[in-house]
């Protein structure tokens, strides 16, 4: 008996809190999401959220959408998949939000995909990787620049092959995102008849990479494709610097998460030089679109107060872009009808601060806009240097290219 | 003692040896204890008394040597099985079940060691009669942590009694007690012995051992150095050396 009253009480309190908060005569447009603000993904979740918040403030300063203000309803999912179903149920059934954004990253997003599909709801993805491939939801749109799943590995291997690379080593973290990257890399390599001479997954929380790098080096690969997570990325680069990687390596990097974050880059300093890694946005001339500069002016100011990544290149502008996507779609459709919004998003190309975005049928980008960029001339302990162009030279895609590959890897590190 | 029964010992220890690493705690100990005997076990500290008890009650495993109880080899049996066969003990440092009341402490023994299945009410009666005999009836519902030293000793004996033992081993049940309390506990043990229970008593208080025992055995460095009537053992030179010499 006791447990039911308690449970009922909880729900009543939760529901009550909501009813009282919405009182304006023109109800705001509510956009609901969970966002990792604690746990392992918080380092990405926080800047991403800040990007979305800046969009909200910009939109509201302009008078909102359809004359209605935008309100964000955000809960912390603690970077855990176990939390998101209840949170999104709350957002849908209790908060009755008008639109849904997905949390940053794949793991927290995966459990809500079947749910939004079943209910026929629009979901704007946030840097998750291939969560829709099995679910097949036609109202899913990912803000990430990934594009077709294999394009990422393909572009990296292209660069390597052009530089004369024939064999590949693969080093991946034993965690979901890295494993997905490694899988596509393996497939692309097989398709191209490229020999994989080293293929290892290392466990999370590996402290010391010297021994792994040593055995990787012994395999003498031309191309080293690394799919790693923030703490390991730093450890791997350190070990590479200390142990060396051999003169035959022409290209090193690819899928190292973490080298996009300001604090990590600052800490790594000159160790980064020569690494060719994926990215989503960089302060190169080719990357500035309408509003991009304005956005970063605001972000830089607010990031200090919020204690989040001072650079915020990787995720924050895409958070802003998510907002721009729905903003344009709602304005064009003239209502909050999710089916219509989805139709509009699918059929048009949208202008955002990260460039034009067009979606293919699976809700991913039509074409990949994942950058492959090489670190050059990076000095130690200097955050500000990354704000100027030339520190990360874009090698791919062609239309954004800002320089050529320096190879071999050991030479590029100097 | 001199009757025919004495030839079928209740407890029979044959060439028992126990080693801890390189240290030999018991060295080829053999002894028979006939039913109904009051058996005193003495020896200086570290002579192997408690080790011997642990071997009898099953807390320690022995490789060479066997322990026979009522003509059955109990060497491979676990302690709780031995308890059910009729070997009960108290501990040198009392080990009550602290989260329980005195009554509950005894109920554990009655629940697990009772031979036949009896009703809860009957078990309660048994418990109360044991407590009354031990002079603990008024403490039945007190927490075991609230007992005085002598009460703890008595409760341990009561708990051991609740397992319906044929052999009761009392390990220094009088240590740290006042002389009047020693007498009290000694009287209790005597009265238990008169109920057809064989008792092995380890004790440092010589007077108590002398008064209590039919027979006394003295251990030193894991070996039996003397066994016989109390006065014989006391007169033994090696016993005197063991106690006074080292």
């Amino acid at each position, binding site marked *: *008996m006791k*447990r039911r009253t*308690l*449970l009922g009480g*909880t*729900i009543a*309190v939760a529901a009550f*809190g909501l009813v009282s908060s919405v009182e304006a005569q023109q109800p705001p447009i509510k956009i609901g999401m969970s966002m990792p*603000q604690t746990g392992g993904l918080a380092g990405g979740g926080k800047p991403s959220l800040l990007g979305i918040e800046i969009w909200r403030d910009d939109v509201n300063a302009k008078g909102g959408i359809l004359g209605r203000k935008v309100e964000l309803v955000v*809960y*912390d*999912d*603690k970077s*855990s*998949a*176990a939390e998101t179903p*209840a*949170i999104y*149920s*709350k957002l*849908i059934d209790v908060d009755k939000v008008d639109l849904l954004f997905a949390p940053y990253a*794949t*793991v927290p997003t*995966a*459990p809500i995909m*079947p*749910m939004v599909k079943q209910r026929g709801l629009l979901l704007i993805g946030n840097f998750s990787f291939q*969560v829709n491939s099995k*679910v097949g939801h036609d109202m899913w749109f990912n803000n990430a620049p990934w594009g077709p799943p294999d394009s990422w590995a393909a572009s990296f291997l292209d660069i390597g092959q052009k530089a004369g690379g024939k064999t590949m080593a693969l080093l991946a*973290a*034993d*965690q*979901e995102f*890295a*494993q997905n990257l490694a*899988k596509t890399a393996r497939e692309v390599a097989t398709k191209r008849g490229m020999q994989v001479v080293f293929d290892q997954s290392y466990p*999370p929380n590996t402290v010391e990479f010297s021994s792994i790098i040593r055995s990787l080096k012994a395999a003498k690969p031309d191309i080293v494709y690394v799919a790693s997570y923030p703490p390991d990325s730093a450890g791997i680069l350190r070990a590479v610097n200390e142990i060396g990687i051999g003169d035959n390596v022409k290209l090193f990097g690819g899928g190292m998460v973490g080298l996009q974050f300001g604090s990590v880059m600052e800490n790594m300093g000159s160790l980064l030089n020569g690494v060719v890694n994926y990215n989503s946005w960089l302060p190169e001339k080719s990357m500035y679109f309408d509003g991009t500069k304005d956005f970063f002016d605001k972000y830089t100011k607010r990031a200090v107060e919020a204690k989040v990544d001072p650079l915020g290149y990787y995720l924050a502008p895409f958070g802003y872009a998510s907002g721009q996507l729905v903003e344009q779609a709602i304005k064009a459709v003239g209502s909050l009808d999710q089916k219509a919004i989805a139709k509009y998003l699918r059929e048009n190309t949208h202008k955002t601060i990260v460039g034009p975005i067009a979606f293919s049928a699976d809700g991913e980008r039509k074409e990949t806009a994942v950058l492959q960029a090489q670190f050059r001339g990076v000095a130690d302990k200097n955050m500000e240097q990354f704000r100027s162009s030339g520190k990360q030279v874009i090698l791919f895609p062609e239309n954004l290219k800002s320089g050529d590959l320096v190879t071999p890897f050991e030479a590029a590190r100097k | 003692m001199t009757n025919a029964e004495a030839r079928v010992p209740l407890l029979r220890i044959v060439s028992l040896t126990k080693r801890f690493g390189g240290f030999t705690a018991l060295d080829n100990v053999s002894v028979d204890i006939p039913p109904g005997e009051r058996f005193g076990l003495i020896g200086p500290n570290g002579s192997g008394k408690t080790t011997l008890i642990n071997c009898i*009650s*099953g*807390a320690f495993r022995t490789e060479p040597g066997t322990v026979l109880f009522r003509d059955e080899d109990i060497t491979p049996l*676990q*302690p*709780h099985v031995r*308890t059910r066969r009729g070997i*009960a003990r108290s*501990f040198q440092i009392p*080990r*009550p*079940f*602290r*989260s*329980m009341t005195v009554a*509950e402490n005894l109920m*554990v023994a009655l*629940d*697990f*060691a009772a031979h036949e299945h009896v009703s809860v009410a009957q078990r309660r009666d048994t418990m109360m009669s044991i407590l009354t005999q031990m002079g603990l009836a008024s403490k039945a*519902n007190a927490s075991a942590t609230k007992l005085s030293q002598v009460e703890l000793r008595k409760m341990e004996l009561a*708990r*051991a009694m609740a397992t319906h033992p044929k052999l009761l081993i009392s390990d220094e049940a009088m240590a740290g007690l006042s002389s009047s309390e020693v007498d009290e506990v000694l009287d209790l043990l005597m009265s238990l012995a008169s109920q057809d229970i064989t008792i092995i008593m380890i004790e440092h208080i010589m007077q108590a051992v002398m008064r209590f025992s039919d027979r006394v055995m003295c251990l030193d460095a894991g070996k039996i150095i003397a066994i016989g009537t109390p006065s014989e053992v006391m007169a033994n030179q090696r016993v005197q050396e063991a106690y006074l010499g080292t």
Partner: protein
Amino acid sequence: MKRKGILFWIGAAVFLAATFLMTQVVGNQYPFFAGYVILQFIVLAVAWSILGGYAGYVNFGTSAFFGVGVYTAVFLAKAFGAPLLVQIATAAAIGALMGFALGLLTLRMQGIFFSIATIALTIIIETVITNWRFVGGAAGIQIERPPTTPPFDNYVQMLFFVQALLVVLAVAISRYIQNSWIGRGLQALRDDELAAECTGVPTLRLKLMACVISGALMCAAGAPAAMYLQFANPASAFDLNYSVSALAMSLIGGTAHWSGPIIGAILLSATQQLLTVTISSEVNVLLLGVMLVLFVVGAPEGIIGLVRKIFHSRNEGKE
């Protein structure tokens, strides 16, 4: 005793009827999502306290059992498309086996050594699952729910009711254990293992029993989580959070009585659910820490202990 037993079963029946009615009447989905999580933690806490509370063996491996439950369900769903009840039953069986193996391997160890061994076991099992490609490996796996079976028109409602059944089962077992000779034996061995053994308590067998029952229930609680999340990855399924929560809930509620872990689980997980959708930040984690410290310091016997203190005049230790 008898009357209390009847009251208990009436209460359980009312609880089940109410949860069932809720699935038929309430249209809003959120109570089921949030309620499911709370019920799941009740089962975990109750199961944990059978070994951790009654026997005093602190199992840090709740997440190992939970995760194995999740992956049993994932495997069965993927390999055979097995229905939910089969998943749960199999998970319980595997959990029992796991508990038995863990017990055999480790119960001869005293106290904290057992806890450390359970940590080791968790990491080993997680590594095995991480390297098992069939169930998705490290990358995780998305699982499709089978169609909903009547009388439920929504899968989460069904899961909610199934978890409620598990709660009743777990509580009934826990209550039975406490009131029976098993409970007294476990309590005795928790206080003093040698003394218990020498009082006739078959300690190893009782511990194994507790381990098996506790393991089976934990695994069973984990199995429906696969269908609840429709996704599983090792990092989430073997989250340390499950281990800490089960322990914290039992202690906050109090382990001296079967109702303690229930109270603790409801209090803690309801608070967490509430905080997730209100304050929703680091403060949430902070609160768990502060609550743990405060309760452990201020109410060492948990809420049950506090209540007993208040009604001290009643005869204590009985039920």
